[in-house]
């Protein structure tokens, strides 16, 4: 049972390919119906690349947390996280494209990347030690390489342990060393990466809660995706060792970190509002006025529904409710990231855009004048159908990458010291 290698049915491969093609068509559609600066294309690319890269980071992060904490319950399916983290290779490629764009001015995603603004705008000038093209490229991509280094170490050791593991636990001890080393590194670099990639689309704005808020978002998505992938693999006859006890614990994590995310979502607002930090209210002003559906819907999808559904004991153990909440939360946090990135990039495109389209401009003006503030523009103030298609494409890419690396080795570590504990896990 433990030495199974997955062999997916061809039907599923075709479905994944179709999803991938849908994503590609959506990308082309967005590119063809875009303004001259390709604002919509680049923002969607940034949005999805960052989201899925951070989900991969959270997978390796949580794997290392469990190794460091002597956690045994997850060993039976731990390689799913190890494989999910290998999406960092794809993430490096995608963020590399965006970084090249920053370097050579292919897009107007970041206000601070504009040479003229960086010299004249006082606030951006003050932040230019961090927000500059070189740091974005070398730092941002360097972080991904660093994360991948640890993901590779963890995977190499666990696979080597399968064949050469013995009672001295040499591989396990090495894994513990690298896992513990990774935690502080991941803690600081993930925050810096979120500042670079997401928060800097609003370069005038600043929030101490933001890095936590964005990473918590991706953490919940990672747990949701893990649950969905595990349920899928179980439905295909793999992972007999994963029982409702494991799903119960994963469900608890989804429940707990949903509340953690809400705490950060609310506190970010509350600190600025109650602290009378007027200059930082611009972030919420834009979102509440121009993105009301996303702003309040965000709270409903990502807090109210999962909170009420997952509160009971048995809903964390049943596939039906887990699938519903998993999909809800995964899409919900994707939307969360959409409303983190979109307003800032559209504003930047309008500020810098000698070529900004009417569409992008319209979205901004609607909010400023307030007269017709409730006109929604597909792909700008709410995700349109091509955006959803692109997300499906990225999901297919992510799942295909995960399954590819999962199929390269045994599904369950054979020699892990905690394997028996995991197989007999009981909540």
């Amino acid at each position, binding site marked *: 049972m433990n030495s199974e290698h997955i062999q997916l049915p061809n039907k599923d491969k075709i479905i994944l390919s179709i999803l991938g093609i849908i994503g590609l068509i959506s990308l082309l559609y967005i590119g063809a119906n875009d303004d001259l600066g390709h604002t919509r294309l680049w923002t969607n690319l940034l949005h999805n690349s960052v989201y899925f890269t951070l989900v991969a980071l959270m997978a390796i992060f949580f794997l290392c947390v469990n190794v460091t904490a002597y956690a045994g319950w997850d060993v039976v399916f731990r390689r799913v996280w190890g494989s999910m983290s290998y999406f960092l290779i794809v993430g490096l490629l995608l963020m590399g494209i965006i970084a090249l764009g920053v370097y050579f001015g292919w897009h107007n995603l970041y206000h601070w990347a504009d040479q003229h603004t960086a010299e004249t705008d006082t606030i951006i000038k003050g932040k230019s030690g961090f927000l500059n093209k070189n740091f974005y490229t070398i730092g941002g991509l360097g972080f991904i390489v660093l994360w991948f280094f640890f993901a590779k170490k963890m995977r190499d050791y666990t696979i080597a342990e399968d064949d050469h593991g013995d009672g001295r636990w040499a591989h396990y001890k090495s894994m513990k060393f690298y896992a513990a080393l990774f935690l502080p590194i991941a803690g600081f670099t993930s925050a810096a990466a979120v500042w670079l990639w997401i928060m800097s689309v609003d370069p005038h704005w600043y929030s101490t809660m933001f890095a936590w808020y964005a990473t918590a978002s991706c953490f919940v998505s990672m747990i949701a995706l893990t649950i969905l992938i595990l349920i899928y693999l179980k439905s295909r006859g793999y992972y007999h060792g994963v029982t409702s006890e494991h799903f119960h614990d994963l469900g608890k994590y989804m429940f707990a970190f949903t509340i953690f995310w809400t705490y950060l979502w*609310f506190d970010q*607002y*509350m600190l600025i*509002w*109650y602290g*009378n930090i007027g200059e930082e209210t611009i972030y919420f002003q834009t979102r509440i006025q121009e993105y009301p559906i996303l702003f309040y819907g965000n709270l409903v999808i990502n807090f109210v529904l999962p909170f009420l559904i997952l*509160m*009971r*004991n048995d809903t964390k153990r049943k596939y039906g409710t887990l699938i519903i909440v998993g999909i809800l939360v995964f899409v919900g946090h994707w939307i969360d990231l959409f409303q983190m990135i979109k307003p800032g990039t559209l504003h930047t495109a309008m500020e810098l855009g000698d070529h900004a389209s009417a569409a992008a401009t319209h979205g901004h003006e609607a909010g400023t004048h307030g007269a017709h503030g409730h006109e929604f523009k597909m792909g700008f103030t709410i995700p349109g159908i091509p955006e959803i298609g692109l997300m499906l494409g990225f999901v297919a890419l992510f799942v295909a990458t995960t399954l590819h690396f999962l199929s390269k080795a045994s599904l369950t570590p054979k020699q892990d010291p905690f394997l028996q504990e995991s197989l007999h896990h*009981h909540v």
Partner: protein
Amino acid sequence: MRKYNVDVVYGIYDDEEKLLHAVRQAKSKHLEIFDVYSPFPVHGMDNALGLSESRLHIAGFVYGAIGTLVAFLGMTWIFTRDWPIIFGGKPYWAVPSFIPITFELTVLFSAWGMTLTFYTICGLWPGVENPQLDLRTTDDKFCLAFNTKDVSISDANSFFSESGAEEVNTKSI
């Protein structure tokens, strides 16, 4: 704990796995178990005994909801009707500033409510007498008891010797 007024026959085990095994055996032989005693919670014992899920958490939800309403409506009444004061230039009905207190009172109500409900159900109040079947079950022994009305002493004796009990005793509690 109430007085049961029953005669029980009980076997002492020296290991929780033996106890768990004995409970499963008794269940499969349809012997009605009066109770089991253990110095610590035994993993899987709830399932083996076939105990129904506790309904305490439903009470917890109700108490929490009451706490939410009390806090939110209470603050709303105080700050808009009873004694309106402007804090930090915020409106009277400043919802975001109510959230932390609403959260705290939700937790407080559900925690206290559940604790008191639990004590009431179990009859755990100061001065309660706690009859122990065998004091060694508070240290390192495990015990499985049958009501002599449900299971005859001879049946119990053969069951206990089969399932590896160290000793068998009877007692009125």
